[in-house]
């Protein structure tokens, strides 16, 4: 960070601007970058999902707007922007407007917690993992609010399901998180990544001691994101569109945006916990191999690290889309049963195993 700050001050000095401006504006930069990257990411994530599903179902997917349909989502976004915002009769107006914002804002805040490289670790917080879980559960509240405020029975049923689901699936998630914290001896996400370094390529990743945990977290993430096969809150064939049935225009876009942004962040979080985050899978960085250990090589390493975490994240996202294209939807009682009867004991077992692993590793 210090090095980047130095570069920023140098850049300002070139235009004869005082250092004070740099001191004030520098902490804001990450958030601006985050906002821009996030929106761009979501736009292409939606396109990616449509393309991947099209391949799975032997279609072509969007291919009319721009080359390979690249601007399809932008066109959709423009459509949503110019659409009328309809508030249904009998809706709680304030809460109805608040809900999409409440879904969207935590997602923007949470983004800074993920260490994208050793230097781009915007909010390096000592209990980062815990904070992540805390903020990540706020959008559930938004769904409850949306369902309640819409004055629509389908919405209400959808949001009811969503809350029940989120509560059930957060428990095994947290227990697996505890196992990761035991392995890393830290709750700081940056430290968790560093704890996964090892002399052999990718052997230190936590997916190996805690593979069961990885599976559990992946399933829980599917449930938290309301994605297939856990997409009960918005089960189209049952509840029309679930909690966002009554939403239109930009309010709907906020829900939509939050959903996909959350998917990206959740996958980045899993990659950080289990797949070595920004670490290279080779045990060395390609840029230092090619450009040497000099100034250029060092700077490029940061970007290479960003590349690695994005690659891992997109792999996980692809897996989620794969699951969506393969499985039918669960029933609500089966969903609960699965969380409490299978995932929770399994996550405790995982915790026990990880503790023993850690104990014997350190006893040697």
């Amino acid at each position, binding site marked *: 960070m210090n090095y980047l700050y130095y570069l920023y001050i140098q850049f300002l000095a070139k235009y004869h601007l005082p250092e004070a401006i740099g001191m004030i504006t520098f902490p804001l930069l990450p958030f601006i970058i985050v906002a821009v990257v996030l929106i761009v990411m979501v736009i292409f994530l939606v396109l990616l999902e449509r393309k991947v599903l099209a391949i799975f179902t*032997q279609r072509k997917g969007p291919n009319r707007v721009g080359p390979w349909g690249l601007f399809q989502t932008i066109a959709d976004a423009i459509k949503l922007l110019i659409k009328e915002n309809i508030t249904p009769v009998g809706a709680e107006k304030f809460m109805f407007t608040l809900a999409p914002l409440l879904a969207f804002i935590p997602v923007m805040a949470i983004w800074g917690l993920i260490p994208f490289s050793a230097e781009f670790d915007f909010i390096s917080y000592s209990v980062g993992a815990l904070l992540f879980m805390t903020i990540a559960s706020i959008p559930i509240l938004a769904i409850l609010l949306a369902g309640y405020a819409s004055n629509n029975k389908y919405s209400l049923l959808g949001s009811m399901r969503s809350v029940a689901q989120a509560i059930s699936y957060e428990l095994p998630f947290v227990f697996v998180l505890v196992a990761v914290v035991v392995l890393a001896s830290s709750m700081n996400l940056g430290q968790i990544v560093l704890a996964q370094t090892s002399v052999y390529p990718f052997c230190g990743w936590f997916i190996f001691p805690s593979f069961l945990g990885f599976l559990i977290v992946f399933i829980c993430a599917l449930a938290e994101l309301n994605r297939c096969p856990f997409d009960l809150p918005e089960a*189209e064939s049952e509840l029309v569109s679930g909690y966002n049935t009554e939403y239109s225009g930009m309010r709907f876009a906020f829900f939509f945006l939050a959903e996909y942004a959350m998917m990206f962040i959740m996958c980045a979080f899993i990659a950080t916990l289990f797949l070595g985050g920004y670490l290279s899978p080779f045990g060395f960085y390609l840029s230092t191999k090619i450009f040497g250990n000099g100034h250029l090589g060092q700077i490029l390493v940061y970007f290479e690290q960003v590349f690695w975490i994005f690659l891992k994240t997109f792999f996980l996202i692809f897996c989620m889309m794969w699951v969506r*294209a393969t499985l039918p939807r669960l029933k*609500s009682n089966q969903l609960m049963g699965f969380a409490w009867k299978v995932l929770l004991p399994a996550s405790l077992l995982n915790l026990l195993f990880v503790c023993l692993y850690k104990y014997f590793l350190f006893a040697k």
Partner: protein
Amino acid sequence: MPNSNQLMKINIGPQHPSTHGVLRLVLELDGEFIRSCEPIIGYLHRGMEKMAENRTYLQYLPTVDRVDYLSGFFYASAFCDAVEYLAQIEVNKSVKYIRVLTMEMNRLASHLLWLGTFMLDLGATTPLFYCFRDREVILSLFESLTGQRLMYNYYTFGGVKHAIPSDWLDKTAEFVNSMPSKIQDYENIITKNPIFVSRTKGIGVITKKSALQYSITGPNLRASGVNLDYRKQKPYLIYNELEFDSITAENGDSFDRYKVRVEEMRVCLKIISQCVDWLKSNQGEVVSAIKQPLLKVPAGEYISNVEAPRGLCSCYLKSDGTNMPYRVKWRTGSYYAVQILPKLLEDNLYPDLMAIFGSLDVILPEVDR
């Protein structure tokens, strides 16, 4: 009822993604449990039976396809059969083979569409596209045969409208050969999928007794263990010359209904290939020689039965000797499947609605007519 004020009344439909048309279900929900269900029909009523009384036989014939837009051939066949019986029109063997061939292909297309939409109801989007891919081949074949993709209007009294195009039978044979592996693919992915099995096994059980009480017919009845297949028991056209099995299952739950229909697709293929083989070696005159618009049917009444994809299709025809029917009455399978719905849904979970309703293969134009 002590807790009646806690029940939530919810309207499913008439516009809803999974009511397969315009059925309206008034449900009373207790949390996620369905306490009562009242189906309300009539949103697609077109007066098919009354229309017949003001049209000549030939004028009414195209409308018959619209009774069920997914399996028009069966209804046309039932109507033609009734008219031919009353007017004592001889139908030669080639025509009968063509009718059976097209009907079985239509059954296959109908079952494929059902499979896709049923899986869509259960939340799996992918099978729909694969089923439509195969259905598309059938529809293209129909298009080259009849000029239409859904409303064929191909049968006439005493024959069919056009002869079979030259390479049509080869194309059909090619399609039939490609299908079994695809059906096996669907079975591999769906039949053993634990989520699918847990959602359909033991759900929406129609017992033998209640199936007979409610006059359920077709695959739904055979899934309950009653072996009633009009193709076998009362063979019409040339079904008595063909070799095929009628498929039954025991439990009568959603899973069995699925299994029966998938097996029936294989039976369809078997019948189609037999018909294709026969038609390749025997060629007779198929285009009707009767002056259709002038057709007058002698007074009398007749009921013709056809085993349609959604159950027994009966056409009651009463003629008073003029060129218009005196009365036409349709008996369709879906109507009875909707009747049993409240009984099946009671005290089931709301998500089971789709697993039960989807498996019954109800189509609304057939219910309302």
